[in-house]
């Protein structure tokens, strides 16, 4: 093994950060500094209020110059936060940036312990380990990889649409992959949007059409990403494109085929209308769907079921020849440099709370269903008619269904209070019914939200503060449902008879979020939404370089926040594309040829096929470009002939022994 670089008799600078009181409140920073100064090799040890501040950084740089430091140790927050910062400081001070090691004194020590003495002892151990390890550090170079300017966006809701247009307008090529037959996501289902009551279609459909007509956007509907290979800048994506049985290029969207279908009546429950309406086997999800191309549903189409249909659709399509029953699933591979995930949310399944009677009593609806009922383009053309054809005279809306509840989801879904208010307004406007909103706490924290709440209250909607405990048919037998709740403001139990119940169900991760996250090498937070790199400072980045998040796949949010986040994700992608390269950590592994015995143990272990066997030399060789730096081969090499940069055996031994070398 090559000799580790000799650091001479000293030259290590140790900097202990107070982080205000975050560290100094629990760890005796003076004691740590005094202790660090006694460690072999340490030339200077100081503590500072905020090491990451400009004066803190200057202090380190000055010491490097004036005291001829050769190594730097900073004991502060998690390296995930500021390792880059201090590597830059080390480099600006004139040293190789990897002549640095960071001690996690905050997240792993001061924030998680209460006993100051124990926390200080732990801090000493951690610093001692760092000092011993940093002496062995070698100079390393970050490698640059170029960034393919094409971008993949997964999910064509408002988040994906907005991000796609932003990037495309900046001149980048976007592949937008949507699994439904149309883009638009949930927003396309709404009639009006809170708090301004803008018509959802009026603001959304122009953007949808712009996506379709944009020369820089390749839109693939009925498609899903099945495989993600490569790494930031150079992802290789496999997309499965399901057949539509209608040729997108040939169909002009006249929809004559729908009229011509042998089914004279629409008979198939319509997904887009939450099964409240019917469609034919050949259909378009909604009038403004993009692409404006019909789709055939294999499950209900007679030609697919029996092969004996008259195919009146094909007849009427005539020489446009857009219908193709033979269309097959296609697989495409594309190269992109960055990825934005915008896969959105799924609504809470209301049958999980049986006492609300969803699925048992026909007049219990979910918020999303009512969005379709109030929609002028919906199954009832915007009239609120119950499943038993009555018009409701009294309506109860239950907030927080499947949110803020120990038994379902503990988090607040953020939009349900507001859409409950919106629905209260719309129902009242359309039916003049008495509307009762049952809420736990009213959450209206956005711009114009509280004003909207006041407006709805002034319109005469009744607000009852209390969790609905039960919903059941009125024993009086007049077709009413009784809603029981303790009114916590009045201190009484109320039983309100209503004709219609609306359950404002919360937002949950997509059912396949776990599979998707694995495919894209991401993490999820506890509730199952995709995990951002940092909740405050990197809210659209992920731990996988080059993959960004937008919209509700990261957590519940309303449309304004979704759009803002989509813009941010697009900007992050643009930043990478425009600079053209990314610098990658040099944690790759190399084979020490003199030591390698050519046993080939490592070769099958590498998940990236980065190791090959060079027959002439009878030695293993690692392709640095393919190596991602996991270190698995290093740990398995029987002769110790593979080395991982910054995680060399010697460095780790020193760290371990340093931790344990207490007096």
């Amino acid at each position: 093994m090559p000799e580790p670089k000799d650091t001479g008799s000293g030259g290590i600078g140790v900097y202990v950060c107070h982080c205000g009181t975050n560290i100094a409140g629990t760890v005796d920073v003076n004691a740590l500094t005094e202790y660090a100064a006694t460690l072999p090799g340490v030339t200077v040890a100081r503590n500072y209020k905020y090491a990451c501040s400009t004066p803190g950084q200057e202090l380190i740089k000055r010491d490097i110059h004036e005291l001829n430091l050769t190594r730097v140790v900073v004991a502060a927050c998690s390296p995930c936060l500021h390792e880059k910062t201090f590597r830059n400081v080390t480099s600006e001070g004139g040293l190789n940036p990897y002549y640095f090691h960071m001690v996690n004194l905050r997240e792993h020590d001061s924030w998680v312990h209460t006993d100051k003495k124990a926390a200080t002892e732990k801090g000493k151990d951690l610093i001692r380990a760092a000092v011993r390890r940093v002496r062995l550090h070698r100079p390393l170079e970050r490698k640059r990889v170029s960034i393919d300017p094409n971008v993949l966006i997964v999910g064509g809701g408002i988040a994906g649409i907005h991000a796609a247009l932003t990037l495309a307008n900046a001149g980048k090529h976007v592949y937008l992959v949507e699994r439904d037959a149309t883009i638009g996501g949930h927003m396309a289902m709404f009639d009006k949007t809170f708090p301004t009551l803008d018509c959802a279609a009026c603001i959304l459909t122009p953007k949808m059409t712009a996506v379709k007509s944009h020369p820089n956007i390749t839109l693939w509907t009925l498609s899903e990403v099945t495989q993600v290979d490569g790494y930031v800048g150079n992802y290789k994506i496999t997309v499965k494109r399901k057949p539509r049985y209608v040729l997108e290029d040939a169909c002009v969207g006249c929809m004559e085929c729908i009229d011509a279908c042998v089914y004279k009546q629409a008979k198939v429950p319509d997904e887009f209308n939450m099964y409240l309406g019917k469609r034919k086997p050949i259909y378009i999800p909604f009038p403004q769907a993009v692409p404006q191309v019909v789709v055939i549903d294999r499950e209900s189409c007679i030609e697919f079921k029996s092969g004996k249909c008259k195919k009146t659709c094909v007849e009427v399509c005539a020489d446009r020849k857009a219908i193709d029953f033979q269309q097959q699933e296609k697989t495409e591979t594309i190269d992109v440099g960055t990825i934005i995930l915008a896969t959105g949310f799924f609504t809470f399944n209301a049958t999980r709370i049986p006492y609300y009677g969803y699925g048992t009593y026909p007049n219990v609806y979910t918020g999303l269903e009512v969005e379709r009922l109030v929609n002028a383009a919906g199954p009832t053309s915007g009239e609120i008619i119950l499943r038993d054809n009555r018009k409701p005279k009294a309506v109860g809306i239950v907030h927080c269904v499947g949110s803020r509840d120990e038994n379902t989801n503990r988090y607040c879904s953020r939009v349900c209070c507001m859409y409950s208010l919106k629905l209260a307004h719309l129902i009242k406007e359309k039916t003049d019914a008495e509307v009762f909103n049952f809420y736990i706490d009213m959450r209206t924290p956005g711009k114009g939200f509280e004003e909207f709440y006041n407006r709805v209250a002034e319109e005469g909607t009744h607000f009852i503060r209390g969790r609905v405990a039960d919903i059941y048919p009125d024993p009086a037998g007049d077709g009413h449902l009784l809603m029981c709740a303790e009114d916590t403001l009045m201190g009484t139990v109320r039983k309100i008879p209503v004709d219609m119940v609306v359950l404002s169900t919360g937002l949950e991760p997509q059912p396949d979020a776990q599979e998707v996250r694995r495919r894209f090498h991401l993490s999820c937070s506890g509730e199952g939404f995709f995990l951002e790199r940092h909740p405050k400072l990197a809210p659209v980045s992920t731990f996988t370089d080059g993959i960004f998040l937008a919209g509700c796949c990261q957590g519940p949010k309303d449309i304004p926040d979704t759009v803002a986040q989509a813009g941010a994700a697009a900007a992050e992608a643009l930043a990478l594309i425009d600079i053209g390269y990314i610098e990658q950590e040099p944690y790759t592994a190399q084979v020490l040829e003199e030591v390698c015995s050519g046993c080939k143990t490592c070769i099958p272990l590498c998940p990236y096929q980065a190791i090959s066997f060079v027959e002439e030399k009878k030695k293993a060789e690692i392709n640095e470009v393919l190596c991602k730096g996991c270190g698995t081969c290093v740990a398995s090499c029987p002769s110790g002939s593979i080395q991982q940069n910054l995680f060399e055996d010697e460095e780790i031994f020193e760290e371990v022994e340093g931790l344990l070398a207490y007096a």
Partner: protein
Amino acid sequence: MPDAMPNSSHAVPPRVEPQTFEPRIVAFFCNWCTYLAADLAGTSRMKYSPNVRVVRVMCSGRVDPQFVLDAFAHGADGVLIGGCHPGDCHYQEGNYKALRRYRLLKRMLRQMGIEEDRIRLEWISASEAERFRWVMNDMVEHVRVLGPLRLQPDEEVFAEEEVAV
């Protein structure tokens, strides 16, 4: 949480006095899951025993059994390895490699007379701060019950030799 260290107003008793035995535990955490869970426990201000010292590696697959032996040889009373859940490894399958090695290592440690509970492999994802805290406390309590690890002198030599190989 048990009161982990003697009250600071008292004189510090020697470290390995049986009643006040504070186990020394070295942990190897992968950068992408367990290390982040530890960070999350920090940002969530969860409290746990201060006996564990963390070494960050990129993947649990990097954990060479020699690191574990080295830790025992130099006075660790327990060693914890933390990685991503099966199927979640940032490098696809490093954690499976870690698991295989861990099984072998456990057998070897048994032959050296090192109790099972002193070595542990746990899958803890980036969001599982609560589980992380539980594992930390649980590990410390198990090792506390076992008492300090006393390697026989010849075993120490053996461990040293193992490391040297």
